[in-house]
């Protein structure tokens, strides 16, 4: 029995958060006796990645001239002091309570719609539905790349122009890009699920839909549900970013206080957001655990699992409450005014601006964007690996200090990702010279918050037997980690890093303004002056760049498997 069987079982749980393209965690179901040889392809990719990183660091000015500005430590300290003394006045807390509800409602309804859209769209993207017609499948995948390639904040601004001050703006800005991502991930999960039942149904004469519903969905249900919860947590953070553009909620209050640099209030908002994220993470984790490891049936009878029943009832109830609370009305999406504004927007934005100077500026900005994202992901990966020992929940009972350290680090990571990237960008600019670096580090710190958690979870899913065996043979803790865990962890962790790279390219839109440049800065200026033809061109470039990064990371992940 090879460890591959375990990897197969673990994949659905871990793959969604890991990589949309399948099962990075313990993913190699290769031959049971590994052959020891160097993979040329891996070396080539490794060298390529190293060169890319060095080039990006050089672009960020790390090797040339000063990058630090120690004099700004006082301003940074003021930001830090706010963390210890948040604004807890009753008026402000009451204000935040209402705003938190709006954010939760946006996130729940947005994620709910995204999961529904993903479930409906996934069959259109799976290998099984297209069979050998690869062109059709590629086209379908290309179609979802467009909504996926644009950041939620960009969707928000576009929707705002069509729908005005309607709650749909916040909901759809989350649901549209998330729906596309979810459809792709669901399709991958379905493709990875064991196919025996599906094939048997088809062989027995069942229709394609029947085979999909009864042969594939149940097999993949665990992974799908786990991913749905993961999306909910992401949606909370996205809802905050949308607040920055005026959709209301916690992000709106955060951005108001941020404009006047009222750090005490900013931190209260961050803590409120952290609390909501903790709730989402804990709930998601409970559900994932139950699915990965169902409790033993007692007395030989099947019983309902309370946790899953509660989750199954609570989540739809939350979505329904959100729809009620926000008072979204489907009619608003198709009324005359929305149609009129859409026509106005399209006529203003078409044809795109393809003048020489704009294209030159776009090319330069695209280079900066790539460099920013590479530096960010490299920092996040290095940090996540260094912290992995503490972010991974120990399988065995451990000493109290170690357990405490683990909780502390995991909470710190949660705070890192609860502070929106634009805030990190300004704060880091206090102690760094302007340029690509502050933006890249801001994105890196935020991504570390996400990667730290995902890396910890990926490592928890790894086969522990090699490390246990080494320990039993008398190896030290460090040696067991180095020889028992590290070799197996490299694949999943790198796959995660590659997946976050795509996300980081999209997120650079948020941090470009402070002298860092990149496509985000260009887009912000074009939107500010209502230069719609140029906005169209820039968005096309953003989507193309996201697609290119997606393809490169896809190839790299294939080499890792």
């Amino acid at each position, binding site marked *: 029995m090879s460890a591959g069987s375990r990897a197969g079982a673990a994949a659905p749980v871990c793959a969604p958060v890991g990589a949309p393209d399948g099962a990075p965690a313990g993913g190699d179901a290769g031959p049971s006796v590994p052959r020891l040889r160097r993979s040329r392809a891996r070396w080539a990719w490794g060298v390529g990645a190293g060169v890319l990183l060095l080039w990006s660091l050089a672009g960020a000015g790390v090797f040339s001239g000063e990058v630090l500005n120690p004099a700004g430590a006082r*301003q940074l300290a003021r930001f830090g002091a706010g963390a210890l003394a948040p604004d807890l006045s009753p008026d402000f807390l009451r204000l935040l309570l209402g705003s938190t509800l709006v954010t939760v409602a946006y996130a729940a309804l947005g994620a709910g719609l995204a999961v529904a859209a993903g479930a409906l769209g996934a069959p259109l993207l799976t290998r099984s539905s297209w069979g050998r017609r690869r062109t059709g499948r590629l086209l379908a995948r290309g179609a979802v790349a467009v909504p996926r390639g644009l950041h939620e904040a960009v969707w928000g601004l576009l929707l705002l122009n069509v729908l005005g001050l309607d709650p749909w703006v916040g909901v759809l800005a989350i649901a549209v890009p998330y729906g596309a991502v979810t459809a792709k991930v669901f399709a991958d999960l379905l493709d990875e699920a064991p196919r025996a039942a599906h094939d048997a149904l088809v062989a027995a004469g069942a229709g394609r839909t029947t085979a999909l519903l009864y042969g594939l969905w149940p097999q993949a249900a665990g992974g799908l549900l786990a991913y749905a919860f993961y999306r909910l947590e992401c949606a909370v953070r996205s809802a905050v970013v949308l607040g920055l553009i005026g959709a209301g909620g916690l992000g709106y209050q955060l951005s108001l206080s941020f404009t006047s640099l009222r750090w005490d209030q900013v931190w209260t908002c961050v803590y409120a957001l952290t609390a909501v994220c903790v709730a989402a993470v804990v709930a998601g984790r409970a559900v994932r655990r139950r699915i990965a490891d169902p409790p033993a049936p007692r007395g030989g009878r099947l019983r309902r699992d309370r946790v899953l029943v509660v989750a199954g009832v609570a989540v739809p109830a939350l979505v329904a409450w959100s729809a009620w609370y926000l008072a979204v009305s489907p009619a608003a999406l198709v009324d005359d005014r929305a149609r009129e504004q859409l026509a106005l927007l399209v006529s203003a934005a078409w044809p795109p601006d393809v003048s020489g100077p704009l294209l030159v500026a776009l090319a330069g900005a695209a280079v900066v964007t790539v460099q920013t994202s590479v530096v960010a992901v490299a920092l996040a990966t290095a940090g996540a690996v260094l912290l992995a020992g503490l972010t991974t929940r120990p399988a065995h009972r451990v000493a109290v200090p170690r357990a405490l350290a683990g909780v502390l680090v995991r909470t710190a990571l949660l705070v890192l990702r609860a502070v929106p990237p634009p805030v990190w960008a300004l704060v880091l600019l206090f102690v760094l010279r*302007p340029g690509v670096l502050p933006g890249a580090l801001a994105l890196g710190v935020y991504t570390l918050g996400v990667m730290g958690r995902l890396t910890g979870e990926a490592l928890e899913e790894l086969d522990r037997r090699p490390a246990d065996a080494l320990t039993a043979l008398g190896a030290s803790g460090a040696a067991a980690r180095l020889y028992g865990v590290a070799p197996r962890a490299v694949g999943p962790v790198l796959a995660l890093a590659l997946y976050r790279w795509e996300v980081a390219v999209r997120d650079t839109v948020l941090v470009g303004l402070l002298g860092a440049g990149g496509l985000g800065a260009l887009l912000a200026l074009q939107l*500010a002056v209502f230069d719609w033809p140029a906005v169209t061109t820039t968005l096309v470039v953003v989507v193309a760049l996201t697609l290119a990064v997606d393809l490169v990371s896809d190839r790299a992940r294939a080499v890792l498997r």
Partner: protein
Amino acid sequence: MRGRDVARSGGPELEPSLQHPSSAPASLPAAPTRRRLLAGLGAGLGAAAAAGALAACGGRTSPVSPAADPSPAGPSAPSGGALTIGAIPDQDPEVLQRLYGLVADSMAEATGLAVTYRPVTDYAAAVSLFRTGDLDLVWFGGLTGVQARRQTPGAVVVAQRDIDEDFRSVFVVNEATGLAPSEDLTELADLRFTYGSQTSTSGFLMPASFLTEQGVDPRGFPGGPGYSGSHDATLQLVASGSYEAGVLNEQVWVARSEAGEVDPAVRLFSRTPPYHDYHWLLGPDAVERLGEDLPERLQDYFLGLSADDPDDARVLELFGAGSFVEARASDHAQIEAVGEQLGLLR
């Protein structure tokens, strides 16, 4: 938890059942999961549909949509009509945006309209919402006001603050530059320099114009200029020394200086000539809906606000004004010309 350990470490398929004396087949728990999933999905869709139907029936107004909470203070008689207002101040926005009830109530009481205040943070969003008619009356900055007028033909300038007739920006430098106060802006050309928001009249547009007048490329500066996003951020960034110089609106500079909140590392370098800035702009839809005399009624309200009346004084204080005065569209011709020159108006 031994059972979990074995399962997690990839033991043979049979082993879980060995852990459970009941010896139920290991695959069984999957079945109820599926059924529950489908049932949950069905229940969820049903509930969501029900909620959607409820909302559609108008049983509730959204906490974030324009129809929400018209000011209760207004008589809100059907004849009064409803007016949606908004503002994006660039000093202490959180104060106004969280105390907007004061403004809405005061205006409702004086005009007899049901006034709703819609908070917005983004300049471009406010311009778009004014165009779509989501906002009837908006307190725009100089540049955004001109942008809004270009996108919304028929918009009327209603009033401006007393200080908006003589608005100025100040250039500030970090003390490490050793620069003494001067009228010569060319001394700034070789410093790392930051503006405020890209669409701010006092934080970008007019300073850039004055720099151009003195022969300094406003988009030059070593490494390109930064856009801090707000006047307070500009102050802090110049204090930190990351940017050696910057520009912000004088009102914020004075307020922060008087409160003793300016870092001693920041020095005043130069004060710009005066220009017009913020003003109240009324959209054509509202005039059509609420009557030809609406601009006059609103102007009467604004000009009638008196610092001697305690209620009025609180409203004036929120806007950082001593009083509101008349304004004309032509007041902003200079801004329009500069905006075109800098490519900020299309």
